[in-house]
């Protein structure tokens, strides 16, 4: 395993070190399923509300969702970069990076200023993420994903490793299921993470708060067609038409209507049930 860098020698922007409090890294696929994205965002938001510093990697997909979730909840989040502190990668996250700094969080990098995004930088960055955090939660990961490097590093550094389960049909959850089988703690909600950190007492003591499970019951069932849609595996209009014995033109129209209402979203050639994200709830 790569050894973590000297954490006192990191280049930083924003508020560093961050305010006191447990730090949790939320990591996952750069191309998550809508489920994974929604989980990352909600988990980050719930943890941030409980005073956790959310650490992630500023990458596309789960990372960005985690940063956004923390920011939506008014929390502090830290982005560990695989580039120089002055190079935002991907460039599409320029605004996100500014928001992280403005929100009292920080950008940190172990690489010299001006360092470009190189393939070999990212595994090292993943190790740093583990070193900076008290626990690592893997939201979604295919086999061989960089998020698993972070998890492995966390194990070596004796940090808590946790994983979010998903559908057994989803390749995005193969990595997380393997982690759970190997002993990682199973995460269903923010409370599970807080409990593992030993910081969840006050939350657990509130018997009136219904435990909100991640990824379930988020979508209101307003249309029969929604019952036949999954939030992980996309279904094409043709398959639905066959299943419901309706003309494909009609099914396509109804799906479009649901898409307009935000209940359904396109995914490649098919459709998925949309999960409401933190932004919409806030």
């Amino acid at each position, binding site marked *: 395993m790569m050894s973590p860098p000297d954490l006192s020698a990191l280049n930083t922007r924003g508020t560093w070190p961050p305010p006191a409090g447990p730090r949790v890294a939320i990591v996952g696929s*750069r*191309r998550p399923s809508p489920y994974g994205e929604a989980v990352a965002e909600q988990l980050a938001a719930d943890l941030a509300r409980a005073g956790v510093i959310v650490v992630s990697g500023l990458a596309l997909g789960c990372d960005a969702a985690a940063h956004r979730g923390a920011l939506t909840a008014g929390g502090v989040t830290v982005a560990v970069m695989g580039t120089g502190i002055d190079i935002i990668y991907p460039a599409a996250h320029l605004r996100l990076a500014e928001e992280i700094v403005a929100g009292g969080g920080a950008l940190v990098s172990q690489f010299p200023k001006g360092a470009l995004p190189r393939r070999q930088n990212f595994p090292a960055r993943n190790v740093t993420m583990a070193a900076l955090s008290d626990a690592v939660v893997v939201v979604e990961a295919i086999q061989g994903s960089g998020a698993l490097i972070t998890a492995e590093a966390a194990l070596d550094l004796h940090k808590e490793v946790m994983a979010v389960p998903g559908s057994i049909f989803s390749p995005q959850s193969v990595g997380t299921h393997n982690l759970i089988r190997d002993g990682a703690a199973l995460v269903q909600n923010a409370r599970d993470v807080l409990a593992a950190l030993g910081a969840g007492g006050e939350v657990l003591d509130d018997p009136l708060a219904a435990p909100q499970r991640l990824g379930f019951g988020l979508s209101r069932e307003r249309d029969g067609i929604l019952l036949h849609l999954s939030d992980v*595996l*996309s279904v*094409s209009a043709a398959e639905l038409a066959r299943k419901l014995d309706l003309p494909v*033109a*009609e099914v*396509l129209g109804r*799906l*479009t209507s649901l898409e307009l209402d935000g209940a359904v979203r396109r995914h490649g050639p098919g459709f998925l049930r949309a999960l409401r994200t933190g932004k919409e709830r806030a």
Partner: protein
Amino acid sequence: MLATVHSCVLVGLEARRVEVQADSGNGKPNFHLVGLAATSVKEARERVRSAIKNSGLDFPRARLTVNLAPAEMRKQGSGLDLPIAVAIALAEIGKPGPARTAFLGELALDGAIRHVDGVLVAARCLRKAGIERFFVPAVDASEAALIDGLEVIPCTHLKQVVAHLLGEDSIPPQPFTKAILEFSNGALEHDLGEVHGQEEARRAIEVAAAGGHHLLLTGPPGAGKTMLAACVPGILGPLDLGEAFEVAQVRSLLGDLLPGRPLDWTRPFRAPHHGVSMAGLIGGGTGLALPGEISRANHGVLFLDELAEFQAPVLQALRQPLETGRITITRSGGSVTYPARFTLVAATNPCPCGWLGDSARTCRCTPAVVDAYQRRLSGPLLDRIDLQVGVRRVPLAELASEPRGEASATVQERVLAARTRQLDRQGCLNAQLKPRRLREVARLEPGSRHTLERWSEQKGLTARGFHRAWRVARTAADLEGAEVIGDRHVLEALGYRLHDVAA
């Protein structure tokens, strides 16, 4: 003596009349060819001299001048060989040229008459200009004989032509080929009945064919995009006489007509490779531009597989013909306009490796690469493609269990009925409706307008995209035989906008 003979040169799909004047008089024996002849016409001097000698005729032993009038027009092509030779032969004999008679053909050195391109175009224009008799190469006679009211004389040898003109031996005219005008609808090469599953793409093809809309199919390799595209000509139904005529004229210019069967009723299907050049796709060449693939696909289907692999400037050049159904190309020799009213069916992989969104295989492309790939398709061209659908790959093992769909003949009936409705109502297909006409013939109820506007706002549609979705909704209603566009028609139309992304 002076002899004058009529002929023509082609300028795109038009023919300009040319008078060939031959004058032999006193002076040192010599052969001058004047009248702005291009290289291919200047070379006629040598062919004509040999052809006349080898036909047993006398070449004037005098000062010979051949003028091609009007002199300010540049003349290209080998079709003037025959009229020049006839003019010289007549001048030597001392006869004026025949009235209201034109000649076109290339000569071999032995006097045999060879094929030239564009005889059908020449015949049509000459007939309009008052020519009554047309001498053409025998191999091209069936083309010319498609023109009603024109006597077509099929010629195989210069000697035979001169003998005919002198009244020594007459060549029987080519009969006006009514028989080939007879309509024949051959068996389809690709039938939708053989396509398993793919209901969404099948429906999109039907809508595209019914309204004249352009279509983009997105899906992994082996999903059947090419097969689906190849089915489009079949559901469009055969060409009508006017369309077949236009198709034949473009083919005639390119020398592409089948000998003896100049009219073909099947819809053109052109599938140029993605390496195609600008000149190859749009049309081009030196001097005057020749038609490209888009004009060969006129009244039929232009299939562009691997759309993202085409050179960007080539795709950009498609914008004018996609909007207007015509292409105007200007080269050093002048400007020509060719018809290019085709249905574009394009296909693309969702990402460079092709497997993004596939259920069985995992895509190996990084998000940045996928983004760059899809951005190559976006923008002005995509904005002009009304229907965009995803095509799923069905694993081979499951293919047989997927239900077969309707046969092309059944779909064609609905498509033709919808096309007739449009033509009766507005004189053109829905895809060609100008925004003003669209507002007149495709009124939207407040509810369906609201749906369209909501989508437009959510996805940041351009005004062009807005109108295109509206036209598709009109077509969906026409397929149903409905006068009023309902909400369901608008929603279906929006369902075909795969590449609209949230603003």
